[in-house]
C-alpha cells in the first residue's frame, strides 16, 4: 500500500489511537460535562483518522522521505529540550525553585507549541461546514477540539518528560516521582487552559479582525520570548546557582501557576506553611476551574464566532473609499513612486511591502529572527570590559570598533527575508504573474529588492546612526555607510543566486540551503572582521564606502536587466 508511506509514523498513529481509547473510557465524566458521548467519540475518531492521513508536502514526497522520520526527529528534538529541563533540576539545588522554573519552561514550551502548531486545529473553520450544520452542541464541539489537541500534544509531553522522569527515577523517592507525574499532567492542563482560555475570551469579546491580529501578535510575542529565553536562560541559571537564590528572593515567580504546582513537592517534604498550602490548593484548583470555565462559560458562542472567521456574513467595516482623493497616498506608494523607475518596478515594491506587512506567517517567521539583534547588542555591551563602569565600557566599545559587529550582524536579516519572500500559503494567487505582460522581470525583482532594503535594512541603519553618533562620535558614520553598502551588495547577490521565484509564489517549505547560508554568513563575518581591523583608517573607510556604493548601484542596474529565466511558469 503505497499511500501508507505518505502518512504519519505508524508508531505515533497507534499511540494516538491508544490515548483516544483511554480517553473514551471515561464516558460518565464526559457526559457530566454536557457532552453527547456518541458524537464526541465519532468526532475524535474522525479527526485522528484525518490527521493520520494528512498528506505530506510535495517537496518531501519528491525527496522520498515519509513524515514518519520527521515525527521521530521532532520527538528527538523535544527530548533534547526535555534534557535542558532536566539540567535545571540538576543545577539548581533548591528543589522547589528548580521545579518552579522547570515547570514554567515546560508550560511556556507547550503553550508556544499549542499556539503555533494547534491554532489551525482550534480554529478549524472546516468544522463550520462539516460538524456545525449537524445537531451537535457547543460543548461537544469545544471539548472535542480541546481533547484532540491534548491527544496531539501527548507525544510532545512524553518526549519532554522522558529525560526528567529517567533522572528523578534514579534520584528521587517513589512518591516524589508519582507527584512529579501529577505535576506534569497539571502543567499540561495549565498550558491547555491558558491557550484555550485566551482564544475563547478573545474571540468572545473582540471583533473577528481584532481577534486574528491578537493571535498573530501572541504568536510573534511567544516566539520572541523563546528566542530570548534560549539566549538568556543559561546566564540566568548560572546567576541563580552562583548566588544561591531561593524562591523567597524571586517573588515574581509566585505569580505563575508553575510555582503553585511545584509547591506539592515542598508539601511532601514537610513544609506545611500557609503559603505552600495555599499554593498547592491553587495548583490543583486553577487548572480544574480553567477547564470548567473553558467548557462551561466561554464555549457558548465560540463556534458561531469560528464560523464567522470563515464566512462573509460578519459585517465588514465600511471604508471611506468615496472620500479618498487621488492626492492622499499611503507611505508605500509614495516611497514606490520616488524609488522605482517604472510601474512594473513599483508593482514588485508594493506587493512585497504590503504582503510582508499583512501576512501572519511571514511576520511569525521573520520577527523572532530579528529579536537576536537587541539581544546581541545587550550581550556585546555586557561582555565588553566586564566590571568597568558604563562610561568606560562605551569608550572601550568605541575604541575597539566592536560596534561594527552589530552593523554586520544586522545584515543577516537580509538572508532570512529573502528566504521567506518567495513563500506563501496563498502561492496559488501567483497565477497573475504569468498572465500579465511582465517584459522585464529584472525590473519587477528590483522593486522587490528595494522594498526589502527599505523595510528591513534601512530602519536598522537609522537606529545605529541614532545610537552610534552620540555614543562613538561622527567617525562611526563612514563605518555605517560601508557596512550598509556591503549589505546592499550582499542583497543583490542573494537575489541573483538564491531567489528563483516571484514573491509569495511557492508553497511554504523548509529550504535546505544550509551550506549556502553558512557561506554567506562566513563571508559577512570575514568582511566584518576586515572592516574592524582597518576601522581606524578613516580615509580608507570613506574611500571603500564610496567604492562599495558605486558597485552597489552598478549591480542594481545589472539586476534590472536580468531576464530571470528561473521565474518561468511551471506547467506541472
Amino acid at each position, binding site marked *: 500500500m503505497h499511500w501508507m508511506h505518505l502518512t504519519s509514523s505508524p508508531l505515533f498513529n497507534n499511540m494516538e489511537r491508544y490515548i483516544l481509547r483511554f480517553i473514551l473510557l471515561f464516558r460518565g465524566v464526559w457526559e457530566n460535562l454536557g457532552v453527547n458521548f456518541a458524537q464526541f467519540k465519532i468526532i475524535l475518531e474522525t479527526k485522528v483518522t484525518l490527521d493520520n492521513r494528512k498528506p505530506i508536502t510535495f517537496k518531501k514526497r519528491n525527496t522520498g522521505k515519509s513524515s514518519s522520520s520527521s515525527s521521530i526527529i521532532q520527538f528527538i528534538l523535544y527530548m533534547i529540550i526535555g534534557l535542558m529541563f532536566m539540567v535545571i533540576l540538576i543545577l539548581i539545588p533548591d528543589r522547589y525553585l528548580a521545579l518552579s522554573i522547570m515547570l514554567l519552561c515546560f508550560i511556556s514550551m507547550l503553550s508556544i507549541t499549542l499556539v503555533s502548531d494547534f491554532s489551525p486545529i482550534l480554529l478549524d473553520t472546516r468544522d463550520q461546514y462539516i460538524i456545525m450544520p449537524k445537531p451537535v452542541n457547543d460543548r461537544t464541539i469545544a471539548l472535542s477540539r480541546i481533547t484532540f489537541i491534548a491527544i496531539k500534544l501527548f507525544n510532545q509531553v512524553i518526549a519532554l518528560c522522558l529525560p526528567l522522569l529517567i533522572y528523578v527515577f534514579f534520584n528521587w523517592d517513589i512518591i516524589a516521582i508519582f507527584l512529579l507525574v501529577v505535576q506534569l499532567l497539571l502543567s499540561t492542563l495549565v498550558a491547555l487552559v491558558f491557550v484555550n482560555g485566551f482564544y475563547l475570551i478573545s474571540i468572545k469579546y473582540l471583533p*473577528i*479582525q481584532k481577534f486574528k491580529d491578537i493571535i498573530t501578535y501572541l504568536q510573534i510575542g511567544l516566539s520572541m520570548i523563546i528566542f530570548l529565553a534560549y539566549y538568556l536562560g543559561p546566564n540566568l541559571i548560572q546567576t541563580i546557582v552562583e548566588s544561591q537564590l531561593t524562591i523567597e528572593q524571586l517573588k515574581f515567580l509566585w505569580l505563575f501557576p508553575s510555582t503553585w504546582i511545584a509547591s506539592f513537592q515542598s508539601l511532601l517534604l514537610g513544609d506545611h506553611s500557609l503559603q505552600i498550602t495555599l499554593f498547592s490548593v491553587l495548583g490543583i484548583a486553577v487548572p480544574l476551574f480553567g477547564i470548567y470555565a473553558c467548557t462551561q462559560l466561554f464555549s457558548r458562542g465560540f463556534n458561531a464566532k469560528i464560523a464567522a472567521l470563515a*464566512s*462573509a456574513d*460578519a459585517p*465588514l*467595516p*465600511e*471604508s*471611506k*473609499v*468615496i472620500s*479618498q482623493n*487621488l492626492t492622499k497616498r499611503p507611505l508605500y*506608494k509614495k516611497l514606490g*513612486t520616488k524609488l522605482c523607475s*517604472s*510601474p*512594473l518596478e*513599483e*508593482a514588485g515594491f*508594493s*506587493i512585497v511591502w*504590503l*504582503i510582508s506587512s*499583512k*501576512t501572519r506567517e511571514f511576520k511569525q517567521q521573520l520577527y523572532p529572527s530579528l529579536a537576536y539583534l537587541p539581544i546581541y547588542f545587550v550581550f556585546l555591551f555586557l561582555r565588553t570590559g566586564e566590571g568597568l563602569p558604563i562610561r568606560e565600557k562605551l569608550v572601550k566599545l568605541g575604541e575597539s570598533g566592536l560596534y561594527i559587529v552589530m552593523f554586520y550582524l544586522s545584515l543577516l536579516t537580509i538572508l532570512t527575508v529573502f528566504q521567506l519572500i518567495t513563500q*506563501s500559503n*496563498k502561492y*496559488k*494567487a501567483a*497565477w*497573475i*504573474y*504569468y*498572465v*500579465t*505582460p*511582465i*517584459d522585464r522581470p529584472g525590473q*519587477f525583482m528590483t522593486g522587490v529588492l528595494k522594498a526589502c532594503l527599505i523595510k528591513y535594512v534601512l530602519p536598522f541603519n537609522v537606529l545605529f546612526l541614532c545610537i552610534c553618533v552620540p555614543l562613538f562620535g561622527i567617525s562611526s558614520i563612514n563605518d555605517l555607510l560601508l557596512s550598509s553598502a556591503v549589505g546592499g551588495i550582499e542583497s543583490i547577490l542573494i537575489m541573483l543566486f538564491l531567489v528563483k521565484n516571484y514573491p*509569495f509564489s511557492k508553497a511554504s517549505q523548509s529550504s535546505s540551503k544550509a551550506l549556502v547560508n553558512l557561506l554567506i554568513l562566513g563571508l559577512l563575518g570575514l568582511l566584518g572582521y576586515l572592516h574592524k581591523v582597518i576601522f581606524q583608517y578613516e580615509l580608507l573607510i570613506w574611500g571603500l564606502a564610496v567604492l562599495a556604493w558605486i558597485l552597489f548601484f552598478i549591480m542594481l542596474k545589472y539586476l534590472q536587466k536580468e531576464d530571470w529565466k528561473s521565474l518561468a*511558469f511551471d*506547467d506541472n
Partner: protein
Amino acid sequence: MEGLSPLIRIIDLKKSYGTKEILKGINLDIFPGQVIGYIGPNGAGKSTTVKILTGLIEDFTGKVEINGIDIQKDPLSIKSQLGYVPENAELYEVLTPMEYLDFVGKLYGMEDHTIQERSLKLLSAFGLAVNANNRMDTFSKGMRQKVLLISGIIHNPQIIILDEPLSGLDANAVIFVKELISLLAKEGKTIFYCSHMMDVVEKVSDRILLISQGSIIADGTIDELKSNPNESLEHIFAKLTNTDNDALDASDIITAIQ
C-alpha cells in the same frame, strides 16, 4: 464574418501530457466582438485551451495567433491584449481590493492615476465601493470573484477570457455580469467564455463551441445547434457528449434513500 480577419486564429492545436493527448488538433477562427461560449465535459480540454490562450502553457504544437501575432513568438504582446478571469478565486487575500488592483494595474504597465480612477469606478459599479479598503480575506467568494472580474478588465483589454466567471456570484450579480458581457461585446470586445452553466452560455453567447475528448465536436449559434426549437443547450450538450442518462441515475438515488 466574411471579409473580417479573425482576431484569434487557432490552427491544428495539439497538446499532450506524456502519452495522453489532451487537445487533438483544434482549428478555430474567432472574430472581433464575438462572444464565444466554450463548453465541454470535465477533462475535455477546456482548461488546457484557456491556458494556451493566456500564455500559461507555451509548450504545444500547432499555431495560435492573436491579432496576427504568434503567441509562441511574442507572448507578452498577446498578454497585454488579454484579460483573464480564472475559475478559482485565487488572489492575495491579505490585500484590499484597491491594493490588489493597483498591483495588477502596474503589472500591465498602467499609470497610477489611471489605475486608481478605474479601480474606484469599477468597484462602485460592482457594488464594492464600501469595501474597497477592507482586506479581502473577510470577503465572500462572490465578492472575491467580483474583484477578479475587475482585475481582468481594468486594463481595457481587447479580448477577455472568462473561466466560470459566475462562480459564487449571487443572482443579482449574475444578471449584472450577463449584461456586462453583452455590453463589452457591443464595445467590440471579444469574449471567450468557459462555463458549465448552460443556461447562461445559451443566453450570452453568439457562438457556441463544444469540446469533447480534445476535439471540437460542435460549432455554431444556439439556433444552428438545435435540432428542434424546444431543445435546450443542456440537452444538446448531453446528447453530443453521451451523458443523456441522468434521469435514470437520479431515480436510482431516490430508490436508495427510501
